[in-house]
């Protein structure tokens, strides 16, 4: 069994990658991915600790985090899709810097 520190290092690395992504990237989709990376780091933490303690709550929490991640992704993508279609068709000039964000 790998020591706990390995799992923690991985999850902290993912956490900081996600945090930097949210704070520095301008593209909305990439920002969304970064938030999901933080939540994945959370899942890894929970699984590692559940294995350390050998109990169920951590595993349940990890599964719930995945479910919540899916729901949030869905809502966020729906909102982004609604916004982008509006920027492209209705009022592109009102949102110059926002529409620029969506170009990869």
């Amino acid at each position, binding site marked *: 069994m790998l020591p706990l520190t390995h799992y923690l290092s991985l999850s902290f690395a993912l956490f900081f990658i996600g945090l930097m992504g949210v704070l520095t990237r301008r593209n909305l989709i990439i920002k969304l991915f970064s*938030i999901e990376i*933080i939540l994945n780091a*959370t899942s890894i933490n929970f699984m590692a600790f559940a294995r350390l303690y050998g109990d169920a*709550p951590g595993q349940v929490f990890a599964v719930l985090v995945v479910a919540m991640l899916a729901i949030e992704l869905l809502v966020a993508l729906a909102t982004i899709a*609604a*916004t982008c279609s509006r920027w492209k068709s*209705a009022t592109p000039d*009102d949102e110059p810097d926002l529409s620029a964000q969506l170009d990869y």
Partner: protein
Amino acid sequence: MLNHILSVFRTYMHGDGAVLLPEMQLFLFAIGTLAMDAWAANTSNEKHGSNPIFQQKYWNPAVALAGIAFSAFTLWMLRARILQSGDLAGFHLTLVVDSYFVFFSALLLVATALAILLSVNCAGISVVRQGRYYALLLFACMSMMLMVSAVDLLVIFLAVEAASISAYFLAATPGLSNRSPSAAVRFLFSSALGSALVAFAFSLLYGLSGATNISQVAGALARRHNVAKVITLSHQSGSQMLQLLLSRLPEAVHWHSFTLEALPIAAFTLVSVGMILKFAAPPFQPEFNRVNGETDFGIPSPVILYLAGAYAIAAVALLLRSLFTIFADSQNIWWYIIAALAIGGISYGVLASLRQTNLERIIVYLSIANMGYVLLGVVAANEGAATAMTYYLLTYLFMVTGVFGILIAVRGRNTCAGGLNDLSGLRQRSPVTALLLIIFVLSLAGAPPTAGFFGRYFIFRSLLETGHRYIAWFVALSSLLVAYSYLRVAVYAWRGDKSETESAAESFGIPEAIVLGVCVFVSLAAGLYSEPFTRMARYAFGQ
């Protein structure tokens, strides 16, 4: 068979069900609103003609208000029950009903009821199909009540996510300028980042304690502090001691004393920053200042009110509960972090509000400052501070609702009002409106006989009592800036404007009149005769 089912149901309602009953009622009424909305879309309006009682515009909010009334009644019954037989707990100690829950749930129910009343005649909302809008308000209220009631990390996380998702949808309600989704995207990203940070902090807490119940987590954190010391000592005093430690305390092998000391602080910081990101989320949208200069958020005013009022109150309530249970024993460490965050929030909110010319945005930025004052009460953390914080939240809700009520009334059918210049001449057009606005604004600014003054004064006093003299002076001095920022609004409302004297006077509908009446009563009464209100505030912490 039926008897058996009934008896099972009855046992459930006396046990776990009672703990969840207020939330369940809200949920059922929300589903009912949705169902009736779908039914109304199928049956055309011709059948009922123009009879206003049958208009969707009125009976959707009426059903939602009925749900809130039922829930409030149940809450009242629960209050009597916990007075008799102590706090209730259910669902394997994941939900509790204590005085803290009763107080904040009542506050959230009132906030939701006021938001519903203000939505009835709001120009932005009467366009959309409203059933889902009111259902979303009820869902949001339900999840926020769960946030206050939950004492298990898992349930807290679920409730926070449920409240956030309702809030995302609410923020995406098309507003006046039909630009809502972009505001919703901004709100969504800061709020989602907040919940991700909170989730990560919860994983650390679970890892440190091996439990998800917050009182068990608190106990484990308190023990960890000693374990860290023992590990450090054993590392210093040789291998024999280390062997002994490993035989007595097997989990010590996984931990280093540094991580044991650092991880709780990391978890604490993440929880605080995450919750602050959630309640300070709406105005963290600098792009909106550049878009068309003066336009509104694009979110309907009642929704902004709900996000800056109820949503913020729920986040603060959850933060307070977690601070006072999970991190209770290390108050001497974390008060620096909270003080820094609160002072930063106050400064940011005040300075940003000085540059704004849009009434909504001024109020929303200053709401960050107000939540900062509430958090400074956590720094003092004595009995007076607990009363001060709940009193502040209680009165703040009514004052800010009053301002938004005026704003919605002033707007009426006029789509682009909301700038400070639109307020000028309000005194000539409608003296009553101007007077009410000035009362609310003076109260928010903290003028002496009003509720706002006492809220800030109680915080100031408790900070002095606990010896945080510099922070107390910061409160006093920054209050002057806050007052200046609010009084700007009052000056615009009072200032005459000769060009527009002939325009129509603002007319209140019955819902707005009720809201404004309640709000002006609380803003004045809580200041002039504060005893009943401070008693309510004391009740929240079971004093």
